[in-house]
């Protein structure tokens, strides 16, 4: 038996040590024949494992019950809130929406330029708790189209968008841990962990931004009777820039305190015994959990909420006067996550042109994806998510053809788009790309002028098969 076979079997049987792994790696990298042998044995292992019989029916149906809510009971209802609902369920009349009929709002954000001035349907005041949600999903062009609307424009449970995250960032949704990718919609009860390699940035429809520091974790919650938006910091630190809230405040909580925000910029850090709030601008009310005592903290001041010291606002920089040691958690870094450009393309999304909705599994569209036409809607197009949400111009290069299409107004799509006068929704023409491999590059520009400065472009390669 060859050495590469021996090492591959040890690997497959979980019996390799580090030295053997390194040896195997050297062999398969250096020798083409060894690589072929290794791959053939790996494929044989796969074929053998594939002979095994499994039954995932029960688990799958449980997960679907989480989505569909086919039974009654608070547990099921709670889990439903943790999951996005299938678009076809939202308006089918099959089941009453979890959020109640009052969740039906028309909250699409007006567009730029000429489109900005077009009137949209008004939202009844009694639906105010849901305005934030509907508006949140409307903020990021493209993401909004994918996650925020069903066919008649209802709101969904998506509460914000993940703008950037480190490669090891994770989302726990419905008890399952999934990779956190930039451009993803975030849903109520999602638990976001920033990972160890960098910050995770969340953006709401009104422009409010929450940035989780590396290794921090937070739960995103629905708005309620007392809050337009809620974030519960469970570990680490965050910084926030909260846009002026109309009506209900933005509420950020920790195990020790609750910060109520109308519009400001501040930092929040939590460790095992205390929570520290630093307010940079504006004003924040913080309430200590242990005794419900509260204090207003103005810009330039901080407060530490813990059981063993007074809840008193102090001037930032005067930490020495604090009775107990300052919190251990370091201040939130203010650097922008390098993975997402300050001015550039964040992601491509694949859209069903029949309903202008995102296609799950392809949004964001991964580099190297294969699009099987027979398994996809008949009309398709690509849109892009940008940071910031609006740019001066987007130029699409397709398959080496420069300036295949220019887009000035959002939504930025590979095919033509327009506003449906009846519904007020954005509609898209299907693209004309044929079967085969394609490369699409989107480049943002600061303005529509010829000498406009370009931002960070993004390229996606994909293959269309029948």
């Amino acid at each position, binding site marked *: 038996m060859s050495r590469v*076979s021996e090492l591959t*079997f040890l690997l497959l049987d979980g019996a390799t040590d580090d030295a053997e792994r390194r040896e195997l790696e050297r062999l398969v990298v250096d020798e083409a024949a060894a690589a072929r042998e290794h791959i053939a044995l790996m494929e044989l292992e796969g074929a053998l494992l594939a002979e095994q019989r499994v039954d995932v029916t029960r688990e799958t149906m449980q997960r679907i019950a989480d989505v569909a809510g086919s039974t009654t009971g608070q547990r099921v209802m709670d889990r439903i809130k943790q999951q996005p609902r299938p678009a076809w369920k939202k308006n089918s009349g099959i089941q009453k929406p979890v959020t109640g009929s009052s969740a039906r709002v028309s909250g699409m954000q007006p567009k730029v330029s000429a489109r900005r001035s077009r009137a949209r349907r008004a939202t009844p005041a009694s639906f105010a708790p849901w305005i934030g949600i509907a508006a949140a999903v409307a903020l990021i062009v493209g993401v909004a189209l994918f996650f925020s609307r069903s066919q008649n424009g209802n709101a969904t449970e998506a509460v914000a968008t993940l703008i950037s995250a480190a490669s090891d960032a994770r989302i726990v949704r419905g008890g399952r841990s999934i990779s956190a990718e930039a451009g993803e919609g975030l849903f109520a009860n999602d638990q976001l962990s920033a990972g160890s390699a960098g910050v995770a940035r969340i953006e709401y429809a009104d422009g409010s931004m929450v940035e989780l520091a590396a290794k921090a974790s937070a739960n995103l919650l629905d708005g309620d009777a007392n809050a337009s938006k809620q974030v519960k910091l469970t570990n680490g630190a965050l910084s926030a820039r909260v846009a002026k809230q109309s009506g209900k405040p933005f509420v950020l909580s920790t195990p020790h305190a609750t910060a109520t925000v109308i519009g400001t910029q501040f930092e929040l850090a939590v460790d095992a015994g205390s929570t520290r709030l630093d307010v940079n601008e504006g004003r924040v009310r913080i309430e200590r959990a242990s005794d419900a005592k509260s204090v207003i903290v103005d810009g330039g001041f901080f407060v530490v909420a813990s059981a063993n010291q007074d809840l008193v606002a102090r001037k930032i920089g005067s930490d020495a006067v604090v009775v107990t040691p300052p919190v251990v958690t370091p201040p939130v870094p203010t650097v922008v996550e390098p993975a997402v450009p300050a001015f550039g393309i964040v992601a491509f999304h694949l859209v069903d042109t029949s309903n202008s909705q995102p296609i799950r599994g392809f949004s964001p569209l991964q580099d190297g994806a294969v699009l099987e036409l027979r398994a996809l809607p008949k009309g398709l197009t690509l849109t892009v998510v940008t940071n910031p949400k609006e740019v001066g111009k987007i130029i699409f290069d397709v398959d080496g053809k420069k300036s295949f299409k220019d887009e000035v107004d959002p939504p930025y799509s590979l095919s033509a788009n327009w506003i449906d006068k009846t519904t007020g929704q954005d509609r898209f023409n299907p693209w004309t790309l044929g079967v085969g491999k394609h490369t699409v590059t989107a480049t943002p520009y600061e303005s529509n002028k010829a000498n406009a400065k370009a931002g960070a472009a993004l390229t996606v390669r994909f293959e269309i098969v029948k």
Partner: protein
Amino acid sequence: MDTASILQRVLKGETDAYASVVAQHQTAVWRVVVSILHDHEKSRELVEQAFVEAYLSLDQFDSSRDFTLWVKGIARNLVREELRRKTRESKRLEVYREHVLARLNAGEEEENAREDELRASLARCREKLPEQSARVLNLRYQQNKGFDEIATEIGRTVDATRQLLQRTRVGLKECIDRSMAQA
């Protein structure tokens, strides 16, 4: 009842009817996922996820098309994401991952044909195995047993059991190579 009829019932609100669709198609999806990932638990999770995503997008499915191919396509895209995630976590031993990604990108039809051919060759070659080898293979792969358990069942040491399984797999690979070359 055929899949298309069941899916129509699901779309009309009979969510529970989807269970029979999962039961009917899960083996095909399982093969796609586990044959690449080799990770039992992760594969189960992705198979479940593939069916959940299919359910969530059921209104987009053209019932005149093959549901198995559709859900297998979803599963393959989930596998791609998982392989990329693994590559981001560690660049070590990525030769196989790169090979699989290239294979997946070659197209669904080629991939389905390759899977069918490999499975048919494997079935032919397994029939030729000596009784003891076939038994060990069955205990390891069909019954998902560890080497300790297998060694106890066949009355050998763990090392001897490992060696027997290694020889069996080498023999199978050589047989499959010959079989696929003839085909």
